[in-house]
Structure formats: C-alpha cells, structure tokens
C-alpha cells in the first residue's frame, strides 16, 4: 500500500514556523533551558538554541517535535497551541478568583517556650492582655467566610494556642455552625508545641476533625537548643505529643515543621533520620529565617551557598531513602515540582505571583489587627506595621482587602513587571515575596541579584531539574510528589 505522506511532507505543508512566548536560561556548558508561558520545560543543546535564535529549526526531527509539543514553537498561524496555552494559563491563575484559602487566627501570645527565633511570644500569664477575645474571634470568622474560596483552612496559632484552649474550641465550633450556611470545605489546624496536649484537647480534636502542626527541628540536642522551655524537654514533649495525636487520631493528623538555624546546616541527615524514626512522612527543609537579623546582609550569596549545600545533601539523602522504599517527601520540592510538572497550584503562599499576601492567607491577630501574612505580623511585633491591613473592630472586609497596604505590595512585587523576574525562565515556578524583600532590603521588590530569596530559589530549581533529568529513580519520585 503506497504511503502517500512522508513525515517531511507533513512538515512542509506548514508555511514556516514561529516562536511562541519563551524564556531561556543557560543551564550549564552544554544545555540551554527553555520554558513556555505555563512553565513546561525543555533542554536543548547550545547549537540547537543558536539555530532557533537565528531563524532555523534544529536538524533533529525529535527536537523539532519536542519544541512543538511543548508549545515553544508552532507552525505559523496554528491556533491549537494558542488555545491550549490559554487553557493552561487559565487553570494556573484560577486561584485568583477564589482567594484566601488560609485564615490564621492568633489565639494568644502567651507561651511557655522561649525559642530563639520567635519574635512574638509573651511570657505573661495575664489573659486579658494577650488573648484574643470572643468578639474579635467572631469578627475574624465573619471575615473568613467572606472569602470566595470554596475550601477554607483555619489555622489557629499563637504563642501557644493550647494555653487558650477555650477560645480555640469556640472558634472551631462557631466556624462549623456558620458553615452550615456557607457550605465551604472547612479544615482546621492547631499549630502547637504539643507540650500541653491532654485528653480534653484530643477528644475535641477527634470529634471535630482537627489536625495538628508542630515544630520538630531535628534530634533532641538541636531542637532543645533552639527551643528552650522550663524543664529543657521541648523535644521529648513534642515527640510524645506527636505519638499521642497519632495514636488517638491517626497518622495523617499531625505534621511537623522544622525551623532551620545555623546549627542545622551541618546536621541535615540527623534531622531527616529523626523524622524517619518517628514515622513522619514529610519534611520541609526550610530556609534560614531573615526576620530578626540585626544587620541586613550586603551580599547574601555566601549564606545562600551554605544553605543550598544543606538542601542538596538533604534532598539527595531523601532520594536515597525513597530508593530503599521509605517514602519521605520534601515539601518545598513537592511544591516546586507541582508547578513545574502540572498546571495545578500547590497553594503555598510564599511562592506565588501575584504574592500570597491577602490572596493566599490572612492573619487575624489577638488584638483584632489584620495582617497580610504571618511574617507581616512578626514585623509589626518588631515595630514595622507596613503589612497591617486594618483592624476587625474598625474596618470592613472590603476595606481590609482593598487597602493600600495590601494592593501596593501586590502590584509592585508582581513578577511579570519586575526587572529580571519578567525575563526569568524560572518565573512560572517562583513567586513574589514582598514581605521578605521589605524586611531584608527595604522595598517590596528589592534587587534580585542581591536577594537570598532569588538566589536560593534558582539554586533549588536548577537542582531539581538536574536530578529530574539525570536520575530515572528521582524522576519517578518527583512525579509522585508533583501529583500529591
């Protein structure tokens, strides 16, 4: 049977080809990274990139097909790639219409720990000064239910919220009553050091489907050094608390977060081993917090290099564990991989553009003041009220959400109009963090070459892409993480 059309014939029927919107990054000596409008990526050789830039298609038909299939080029005037890119773009920005999925309630500032990196807690036992009032909580709930988001997570933190458990209980029960009308997908998290966990709390949590989030910085010596409490037993209590929640409510009802300090940087395997030993299935290798640093770093790149070494060692160790059948997940990688490999939004407020302030999260402080992010609240405790949107007792929801304090940083930090970000091949994976940049550099945008946020993220993006393409085992693991 004669084959009428050969592959070249088919290519020939197009009146030439043209570029679609692409960005590039010289990845290493042999590869150029190309990304399309929605973050799909392709590595090409330097020669193929030069050919493309001088108006010629690469000679290898497979490369030509990959360029077309990933919507980096199209046949002149072809409209299917345009329709598909538009659909994918719409999916990626869907969250903007359904804003504020995370609502943080600061139930009290009281706390019995004195963690070295905490800027907010108070040791006082006088309730009325540092506890959220019932009226404030009610107003905060009203604001919460005004969010268009169909799924709402209410996270109650502090200080130590279990010191004001009566209010915590009231917030949750009242929210559930209000939800009968609103019918949102509600979830609750209590962020607690778990030292004060008892049966009353556990019974309530079991009945109302409440989850816990706690701090676990690593092995006992590291954790207890970071987080002193009377009795020097923060770690022991955290572990015991994790066990209690797990036994009573189930393994998926407690998650642990670590805070990275200088002391953590040489101990990443110990930290991960601690998580594995205690049956925690996910770890978040977080950056060093910039808040509270007395002096702004002139060139943060040295710190970033040390931290990236920490991260890389941790990630590679986690991949090794996965290869041995232990399914540990690294949270930040999972968030980035979801942005790289799918059109879905991981809903992580600190890595998104437009920024996650207000749109992703709102913080209702014990005193009624409302902040665009948790870090924004911390800055206020240190005297900087830039990210204070208003007060529940003085402003309407509309006033809070249209305040200049929210809109100005959103607009100014928008990556598509930021120098360097707008050209960056990694922009679809990255985000805007006006709070971080304001705290470290004094403006919402800062200069990205000097930004630890930028340098760190680029290091991670390069690391993940490298592992994805060089290690088939890592690739499988990454695909699983991206689809969580």
């Amino acid at each position, binding site marked *: 049977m004669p084959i009428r059309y050969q592959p070249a014939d088919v290519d020939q029927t197009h009146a030439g080809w043209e570029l679609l*919107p692409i*960005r*590039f990054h010289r990845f290493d000596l042999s590869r150029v990274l190309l990304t399309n409008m929605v973050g799909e990526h392709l590595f090409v050789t330097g020669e193929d990139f030069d050919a493309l830039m001088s108006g010629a298609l690469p000679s290898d038909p497979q490369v030509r097909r990959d360029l077309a299939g990933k919507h980096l080029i199209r046949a002149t005037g072809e409209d299917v790639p*345009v329709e598909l890119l538009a659909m994918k*773009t*719409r999916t990626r*920005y869907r969250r903007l219409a359904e804003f504020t999925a995370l609502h943080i309630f600061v139930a009290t500032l009281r706390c019995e720990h004195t963690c070295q990196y905490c800027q907010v807690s108070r040791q006082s036992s006088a309730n009325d000064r540092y506890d959220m009032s019932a009226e404030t909580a009610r107003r905060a709930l009203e604001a919460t239910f005004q969010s268009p988001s169909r799924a709402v997570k209410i996270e109650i933190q502090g200080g130590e919220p279990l010191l004001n458990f009566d209010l915590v209980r009231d917030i949750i029960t009242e929210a559930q009553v209000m939800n009968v009308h609103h019918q949102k997908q509600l979830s609750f998290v209590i962020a607690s050091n778990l030292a004060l966990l008892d049966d009353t709390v556990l019974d309530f949590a079991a009945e109302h489907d409440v989850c816990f989030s706690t701090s676990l910085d690593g092995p006992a010596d590291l954790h207890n050094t970071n987080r002193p409490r009377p009795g020097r037993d923060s770690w022991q209590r955290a572990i015991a608390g994790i066990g209690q929640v797990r036994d009573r409510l189930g393994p998926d009802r407690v998650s642990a977060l670590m805070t990275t300090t200088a002391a953590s940087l040489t101990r990443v395997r110990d930290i991960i081993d601690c998580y594995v030993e205690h049956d925690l299935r996910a770890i978040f290798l977080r950056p060093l917090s910039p808040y509270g640093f007395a002096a702004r770093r002139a060139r943060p790149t040295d710190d970033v290099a040390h931290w990236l070494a920490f991260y890389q060692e941790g990630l590679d160790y986690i991949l090794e564990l996965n290869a041995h059948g232990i399914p540990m997940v690294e949270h930040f990688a999972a968030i980035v991989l979801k942005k790289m490999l799918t059109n879905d939004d991981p809903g992580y407020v600190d890595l998104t553009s437009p920024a996650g302030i207000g749109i992703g999260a709102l913080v209702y402080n014990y005193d009624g003041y409302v902040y665009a992010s948790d870090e924004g609240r911390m800055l206020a405790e240190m005297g900087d009220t830039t990210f204070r949107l208003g007060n529940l007792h003085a402003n309407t929801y509309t006033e809070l959400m249209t305040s200049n304090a929210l809109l100005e940083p959103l607009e100014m930090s928008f990556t598509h109009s930021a120098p360097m970000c707008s050209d960056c091949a990694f922009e679809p994976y990255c985000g805007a963090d006006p709070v971080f940049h304001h705290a470290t550099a004094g403006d919402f945008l800062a*200069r990205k*070459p*000097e930004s630890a946020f930028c340098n760190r993220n680029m290091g991670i993006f390069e690391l993940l892409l490298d592992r994805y393409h060089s290690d088939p085992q890592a690739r499988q693991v990454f695909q699983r993480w991206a689809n969580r």
Partner: protein
Amino acid sequence: MSVVECRFDASGYSIDAIQRAAYKFCDRFALEVTGDGQVFLCRLDFRSDVTDRSSIARSFKTEVLDQVLRERIRAETEGVRNVILAVAFSNAHLEPQ
C-alpha cells in the same frame, strides 16, 4: 582600578539590553553608560571585595548578547502572547457579582 570599561556598537545593541544585563550584576558592579549615537561606553564600577573582575566583565558582555536575544523574542512573540492572555481571561468573570 575598580573600574573596567567596555563598548557596544549602537547598531547592534540597545540601551535596554545593556541595562537589563547590568541589573543582573548589580550585586557586583554598578554601571555607568554614556552613548553618542554610534557607541555605548560602559564603565563597570566594581565593589571593592570583588576579585575576578575580568571574568565577570566577560560574563557581562555575554549577558548583553543574551538580552538582545530576549528583546527579539519579546518583539516577535508579543502579539501571540497577548492573544493567549486575552483568550485565557475572556470568560474569567472578573466583575463582582
């Protein structure tokens, strides 16, 4: 000397490309650029603690070339990019109900 100089032919390079490239190095040098219509004269004023100046200057020149490429990509694809965004948000219901 903490200053390195280089020149770019104005017929092949735009001031925009030079500035965008310089921005990427702003943690290492500050750029002063003057042009007479034929040539852009660049003075790279390095921070005192930066040591490998000639290699950074070379990277800068390469980056300027890459910025020229980005300029070209932007120009060629601006039209289709606007169409994609228009289609993406055409039924977005952004007005308050």
